[in-house]
């Protein structure tokens, strides 16, 4: 007799080899935590979810930093709610990741705060003015939404797919708040307009780079082969450029890409992308990486007493 608290692999399905497993995936199979999944799948999917969880947490911490600076009560409330959403996303994802049995949640958090773990490039940059927060809500939440929705579309790991449904829905609120805030700046004073243009100059490329460099050819990327990702990085990036260039032009802003052009079919094509900044963020060498990680680590240390008190009360 088993309960849900038993080690997962004692109660699920198993596969003879990777080909057998691939046939299961290609036949529309969904993997559940109790399955004796191939180690390669477990490690790769775990790494992906851990990266996503870390990104939600680091994103939530920046949102929090801006609550006191948000202009007016309504925007403060919106940023409070958004912070809670992002931290909530991290919670959901860390639970799903921890249940894969690779690392505990505490191990994941400690490695993140030690600078030994990775998170999205966009959270390695500094938000300079309030307009940066608007750019983040409009551009970064939208890019995250697009890439998460593309994972949700197939996603063969059941628990991840189920929490993504909720996360994607909440990202939708953030995007709508983002565009409303953008509308206010775009139709506001000339200073507000300039502020957003300056923020756009800082955030356009990081947002475009969030999708990552082109996926390796064919199905060389195991995450595509195992149907965690339903779309290639370059296709997601292109769809994003195609959607956001006209939107930003419509609000009267300029895209900081001198090579940006519209081809014969009217499709917007971004200029050559310099991937060095993205690579630097993966080594914790982004413009604001050190400060961000140190702040998160200090936060973790400052709240140790809460965790201790909870342990004692239990």
């Amino acid at each position: 007799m088993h309960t849900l608290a038993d080690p997962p692999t004692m109660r699920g399905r198993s596969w003879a080899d990777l080909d057998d497993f691939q046939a299961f995936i290609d036949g529309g199979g969904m993997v559940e935590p109790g399955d004796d999944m191939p180690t390669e799948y477990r490690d790769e999917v775990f790494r992906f979810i851990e990266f996503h969880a870390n990104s939600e947490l680091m994103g939530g911490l920046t949102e929090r930093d801006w609550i006191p600076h948000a202009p007016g009560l309504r925007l403060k409330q919106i940023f409070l709610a958004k912070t809670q959403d992002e931290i909530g996303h991290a919670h959901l994802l860390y639970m799903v990741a921890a249940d894969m049995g690779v690392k505990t949640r505490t191990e994941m958090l400690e490695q993140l705060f030690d600078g030994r773990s990775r998170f999205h490039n966009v959270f390695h940059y500094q938000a300079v003015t309030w307009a940066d927060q608007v750019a983040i809500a409009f551009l970064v939440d939208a890019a995250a939404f697009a890439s998460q929705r593309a994972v949700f579309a197939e996603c063969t790991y059941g628990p991840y797919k189920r929490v993504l449904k909720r996360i994607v829905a909440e990202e939708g609120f953030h995007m709508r708040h983002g565009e409303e805030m953008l509308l206010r700046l775009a139709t506001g004073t000339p200073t507000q307009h300039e502020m957003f243009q300056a923020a756009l100059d800082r955030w356009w490329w990081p947002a475009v780079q969030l999708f990552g460099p082109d996926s390796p050819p064919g199905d060389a990327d195991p995450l595509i082969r195992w149907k965690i990702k339903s779309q290639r990085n370059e296709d997601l990036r292109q769809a994003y450029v195609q959607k956001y260039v006209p939107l930003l032009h419509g609000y009267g802003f300029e895209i900081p890409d001198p090579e940006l052009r519209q081809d014969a079919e009217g499709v917007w094509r971004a200029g050559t992308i310099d991937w060095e900044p993205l690579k630097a963020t993966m080594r914790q060498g982004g413009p604001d990486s050190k400060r961000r990680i140190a702040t998160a680590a200090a936060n973790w240390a400052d709240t140790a007493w809460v965790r201790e008190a909870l342990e004692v009360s239990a």
Partner: protein
Amino acid sequence: MKTYEVFLKKAGRDEFRHAGSLDAPDPEMALMYARETHARRAEGAEMWLVERGNVLVADPDALAVNDDKPHRHNDGTLVAARRKERREGDDS
């Protein structure tokens, strides 16, 4: 810390559905975490929390499709074929 499974049910429709899991030191905190993590936008009118160790897991083999009991299903093939025949018969 104990791990709890969270179930939510919308008012007046559907069944309770698994919403996720969480770690909490005691039942009171578990309820608060569940509300804050899973039910911020009226995702449910009712919520159940169950400690993970209290959820019994059935052997998947016991749930496999009962290939030896086809009489439990009827896919309607025979009747559908007869109807199709009649329809096509009417057209000619």
